[in-house]
């Protein structure tokens, strides 16, 4: 599936929730389930510093696709990271660089991606896109 298709899938998933609590329980369970990053990445080098919560991000190229791994100390942040990684990871750089992330808004989680929130997610997304753009530039 490409990025747009995965985003559609996630939208369908979230359409099932009428109550905010169900939605957040889903995010929390995603945050709890996924040990998305190995301990070796939970260091200063991989830290994307937020004022409210911390995010760790690693990026690498595997078989021509960019693979992201990320984590957070806050479980809701981690749940949203799980969504973003599910959408953006394991795709070609060009697709990531041009990815439309409007789905976050459509599933009612836009506030978490506001710079005001200062939870590290905005900086993380920026770094993901920059990594893809840099990779493209390198290979052109």
């Amino acid at each position, binding site marked *: 599936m490409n990025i747009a298709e995965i985003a559609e899938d996630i939208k369908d998933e979230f359409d099932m929730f009428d109550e905010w609590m169900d939605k957040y329980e889903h995010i929390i369970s995603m945050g709890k389930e996924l040990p998305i990053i190995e301990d070796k990445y939970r260091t200063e080098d991989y830290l994307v510093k937020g004022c409210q*919560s911390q995010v760790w991000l690693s990026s690498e190229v595997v078989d021509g696709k960019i693979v992201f791994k990320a984590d957070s100390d806050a479980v809701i942040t981690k749940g949203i990271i799980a969504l973003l990684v599910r959408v953006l990871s394991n795709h070609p750089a060009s697709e990531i660089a041009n990815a439309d992330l409007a789905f976050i808004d459509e599933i009612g989680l836009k506030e978490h991606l506001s710079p005001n929130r200062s939870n590290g997610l905005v900086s993380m997304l920026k770094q993901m896109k920059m990594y893809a753009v840099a990779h493209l530039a390198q290979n052109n």
Partner: protein
Amino acid sequence: MSSTFTEINIRRIRNEFPTLDREVHGKDLIYLDNGATSQKPQAVIDRINKYYEEENANIHRGVHFLSQYSTEQYELARKKVQNFINAEKEEEIIFTSGTTDSINLVANTFGKKYFKEGSEVIISTMEHHSNIVPWQMICELTGASLKVIPITDSGELMMDEFKSMVNEKTAFISVTHVSNTLGTINPVKEIIDFAHERNIPVLLDGAQAVPHMRIDVQDLDADFYAFSAHKMYGPTGVGILYGKEKFLEDLPPYRGGGDMIKSVSFEKTVYNDLPHKFEAGTPNIAGGIGLGAAIDYMESLGLDKIANYENELLEYATPILSSIDGFNIIGEAQNKAAVISFLVDGTHPYDLGTLLDQMGIAIRTGHHCTEPLMNRFEIPGTARASFAFYNTTEEIDYLFESLNRAINMLR
């Protein structure tokens, strides 16, 4: 007359704050982020509107009626501040843009004039960044250094350590009156007395004190006292620096421009008298007048009643919240303002804050602009509920229920 508010009082008071009447995420707003900023009563909102609708003119410089009138209103606000904190003279009240600006003013004038290589400035571990960074900046410029008073695990200043820190190199002491994160009310009078025996001036950061208790700068004998209008039910963008006349007269101006001069020529500028010497440019006129209305409002409620009622809220909330499994309060000083900073085992403050927000409750999470304090406790941040006189025990009950709900979702 009772020395606190009754239920009827509180209902009437709440009706005077339009924001408290709104909903967020479809729930009644429970506003417990008063440490960040307070809500504004209708009287303050109306006063600011009236200024813009009927009185707007620039001040201190016009022969015309409106300029004269708005000048009088603005200066009346200064007089109200003077009476409110019992300053000896109205010239000792400098309008600034906020507590941060007030502290920067003192650091940049006193520091520039008196700090030199080897000078020491004493602050404390529990300072807000705005009472750390201005001093760091001036230290860098002058070769002075910062000395930091340590605190106990309960969040109180170690006074013996403080006293042993003071020496002939100590040039200035700047400490918070009430901690924004811990709620600790510091023994500022003891600090000032000790400093004055050694001729060392003291600034108090009163941003978190003024909204909650009666301040008497003469009784405290503070040399400088800084606070913000927006935390005391007034508008944003206005702050106060109280300074003893002898210091303010002695210090050089902070910013140059209009209003702070007597005469200007390309050869020499003669500075204006106090307080205008420190008030360059057109000030926040509406804000100053709005602050005057906020002071009237607080006085009408009674500052002692406000303090007593908020203390009742703290005493009500502390045992109830502490009964939650794994609930840890950060800041358990004997003498404490109505602030509860907390962590709950197995949860992150960001997650708690996010879920409480969905339930209509506004609290603050994070490091509260006190990163060194967070490092002292070796924690990334806290969740903080900070109360005001319009909060109720019912709201605290709802906070308790909602916290339990959030914790259940997170654990």
